[in-house]
């Protein structure tokens, strides 16, 4: 594994550079290349996890052979491994789904190139151990996603892309500005080194003021509630696999992961040392849960509904990190995993419905369970997982977050979180009832089941959601707990990187 870490970035990059060349030879070659890269990445991330789970220490890869403060290091610890796993686990089915989905679009190789770049960017963010490098990879993923959102080049898609780009770039520049100030103060960019320097300086007001713009940037990327306005439009306009990636992975890697990495490991914050900050996270998490849930319920368009649901679910993740004790952070990380898989699944399934029926409004289509059972049941099972019905993955994340809230004696938070999982179920049931079962007002919409490749992608994600739920124990012990350990150890991260 020690030598394989850069491949998480190099492979998709090579794919991205090769796809335009191969596209000139034969169209099918692009499909094959992209999917091959996706599959290899899944294998690699699973291998990496196994490697870490069997007791090997985290990998610190020194780019170009330079020692940490001088060169750029890649850090592949348990947290990175989890995030990389999430990325590729959703990325591969999304790529599979794309093969037939793109039949209706032009510009196939451009799509694959951008998708590969998106993957490279997110993997790069996950394994980067350097502030500026992280920013660069955030930008790669972000720019690729802007272009992908506007991929259809219809008026509304372009608008959504522009709006998303405006918001996203403001966030990116805020992050860069913060990094600049950090550099001016600490004169280093390596996260580990920087955290040691910061630890020596103590929590002066300066500390918080520098953290501020960065948090705003991450909040925009993760679509936390005051900054969520880009998300529904972008998710609505993007091609389905891209919506799945954006919603399932993008906002978590670029927003949540980057934030917790910086907050816990670089700034060395923990609930015990900075209760006010964590209470603020809890507050924002709750606001996101509530606002996202309530907005989702009022939607007529089922993709928009899913987009608002994402806002709400990100609120859960934030809430978990904000509560900040063992169970809550485990729950938040588990929810990252569970939500990535299920929301990816839901977006794929809903776009599969749209593709076969041509409508995205609830109430204009109905009775689809009969004509497209696999899509329907994928959607239903995904909804169950998202709402937190055992034995799916979503249940355990909800349980752990509630456990964390109760253990922190935040009873009302626990009850609110629990109640809003009913709201989640409520808005998803709205879709399920009217689109898949009800025949009110509309005849069962004539539709054929999607092509097998798309079904395969969806079934894969259903199986994952189920497997993560039934096998939550191994997932918890081998994947999530070590990742939470990384966050808890805080500044030990620096010793690990610099000592290694």
């Amino acid at each position: 594994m020690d030598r394989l870490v850069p491949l998480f970035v190099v492979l998709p990059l090579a794919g991205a550079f090769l796809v335009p060349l191969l596209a000139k030879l034969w169209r099918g070659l692009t499909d094959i290349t992209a999917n091959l890269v996706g599959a290899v990445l899944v294998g690699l991330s699973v291998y990496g996890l196994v490697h870490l789970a069997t007791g090997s220490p985290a990998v610190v890869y020194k780019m170009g052979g330079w020692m940490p403060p001088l060169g750029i290091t890649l850090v592949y610890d348990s947290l990175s491994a989890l995030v990389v796993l999430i990325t590729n686990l959703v990325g591969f089915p999304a790529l599979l789904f794309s093969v037939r989905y793109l039949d209706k679009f032009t510009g196939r190789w451009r799509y694959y190139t951008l998708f590969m770049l998106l993957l490279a960017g997110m993997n790069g963010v996950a394994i980067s151990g350097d502030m500026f490098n992280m920013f660069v990879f955030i930008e790669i993923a972000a720019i690729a996603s802007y272009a992908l959102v506007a991929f259809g080049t219809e008026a509304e898609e372009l608008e959504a892309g522009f709006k998303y780009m405006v918001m996203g770039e403001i966030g990116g520049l805020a992050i860069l500005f913060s990094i600049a100030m950090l550099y001016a103060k600490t004169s280093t960019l390596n996260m580990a080194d920087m955290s040691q320097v910061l630890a020596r300086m103590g929590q002066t007001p300066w500390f918080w003021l520098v953290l501020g713009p960065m948090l705003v940037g991450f909040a925009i990327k993760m679509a936390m509630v005051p900054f969520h306005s880009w998300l529904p439009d972008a998710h609505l306009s993007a091609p389905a696999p891209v919506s799945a990636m954006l919603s399932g992975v993008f906002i978590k890697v670029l927003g949540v992961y980057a934030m917790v990495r910086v907050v816990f490991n670089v700034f060395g914050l923990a609930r015990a040392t900075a209760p006010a900050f964590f209470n603020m996270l809890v507050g924002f998490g709750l606001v996101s849960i509530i606002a996202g849930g309530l907005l989702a319920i009022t939607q007529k368009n089922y993709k928009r509904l899913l987009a608002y649901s994402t806002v709400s679910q990100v609120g859960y993740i934030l809430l978990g990190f904000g509560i900040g004790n063992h169970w809550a952070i485990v729950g938040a990380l588990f929810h990252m995993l569970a939500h990535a898989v299920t929301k990816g699944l839901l977006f794929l399934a809903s776009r599969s419905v749209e593709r076969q029926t041509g409508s995205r409004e609830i109430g204009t289509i109905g009775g689809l369970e009969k004509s497209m059972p696999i899509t329907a049941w994928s959607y239903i099972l995904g909804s169950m997982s998202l709402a937190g019905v055992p034995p799916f993955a979503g249940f355990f994340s909800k349980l752990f977050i509630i456990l964390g809230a109760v253990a922190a004696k935040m009873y009302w938070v626990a009850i609110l979180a629990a109640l809003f999982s009913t709201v989640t179920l409520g808005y998803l049931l709205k879709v399920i009832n009217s689109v898949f079962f009800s025949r009110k007002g509309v005849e069962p919409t004539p539709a054929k089941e999607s092509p097998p490749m798309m079904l395969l992608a969806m079934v894969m994600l259903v199986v994952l959601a189920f497997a993560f739920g039934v096998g939550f124990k191994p997932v918890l012990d081998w994947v999530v707990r070590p990742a939470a350990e990384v966050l808890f150890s805080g500044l030990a991260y620096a010793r690990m990187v610099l000592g290694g």
Partner: protein
Amino acid sequence: MTGLVAAVILVPIVLGILLLILRRLSPWARNLIAVLGSAATLGLAIVLWVTAGPGSHNLWLMGVLGAAPVPLLMVDGIGLLLVVLFSFVWLLVTIYSLSYMKDYPFQDDYYGFLLVMLGSMVGFCLSQNLLMIYLFWEVAGMATWRLVAFYRNDREIRAATKTLFMTFTGSVLMLVGFAGIFVEHQTLNVNSLAGSGISIWASLLILVGMITKSASLPFYIWLPDAHTAAPSPMSALLSGIIAKIGLIAYLRIFIQSQVVLPSWWPLLVAGLGVGGSLLAAGCALRVKDYKRVLAFSTVSQLGYIFIGFAFAEGFGLMAGVIYLVAHCLAKAGLFMAMGIVERTTHKRNIDELSGLAHSMPVTAVSCAVLMLSIIGLPPLLGFFGKFYVILAAVKGNLVIATGGIIAAVMTVLYMLRVYRMFTGEPREGITGRDSGVMTTVVVVLAAASLVLGFLFPYLSRFLDQGIVAAL
């Protein structure tokens, strides 16, 4: 033993999922799998009974939440009794469905979910771990959702959504309560809570979950809608078995675990029970739809069982369990009998029907037996349950006992009101018909109520052993 327990849970679930996945089976194969699945569960349950006997056996399956393995499932007397009883009723319902559901589409869904629900009920009855209780609870709830909405018309979908929504809300609140228990005691096993207290808010949240599922006072409103919307065999299961989930959970979490409860706790639970009982009985006297009357009656009788469980010391617990068994048999039978009536007359209003006894005598007679069991006439099983519940209530609190007696009287009234459709002169153009298989099933259930009534001493001794061994 572990394998047997796993089998009795997994066989129906796997077969059910198989049915759901392999749509387009020939009807013959599908029916065969459905019946075989229930029969196999019953068989395995009986084998389990014979090999295990009353008494408790811990089963150490995979460990959860912690380094040491935690017992997840446990075979004890009550669990065994309920498993055998439920799978027996289930088999009858499945056989009944073969002819009742003959003409409907989506039968793969129906039988598939029926089996999944059976498996999760069996698992639920054997669970001693909060996590497993919640797991099976929710799986059963999801299957209920699909089965209530089986006809897929607007009304049924709305009723099913309401059902799911309310019970889910209750259960997530219960989950918060479970989280409270776990945080306080670092355990999810109900048997290791003995002698310690649960904080009040956690117990109240758990109680909320139970009374939403078992449809008691503040949260009963989903139940009548669900019963009227569901296909009759499903109503039978819903009323007879699914609605008992909350009660069984109460039994496990608050009684069997021997947690220390505050002194006002029995009054609260019994008060809710008797209140629900009276209110629902009042509703049952007003509505016209006979399935709805029976649904309200279910709410009312569930209230009774809550009273029994509330005053669990002494014989209240046993009374509650006996009434649970009696009600399960009788109400399942009644709903299926009403299904026959509905099927043959296509009417659901009490006032439009009369004199059906002439055209469907067997059904009428067995219906009478079942109703009497619920009314509580000796020597039927229901009598013992009701009698002991009221006895326990008298020992506990006189006001509640009075309420219980009033509710019992009201039960007589609304049952007679329903039974009017069998008596009197037959109406023009409305004739019922006994139909072979379906009527047989009802008769079997009526007979079971009768026979168990006669066998009451044996039953009570078995229960005594079972419960005492478990506690």
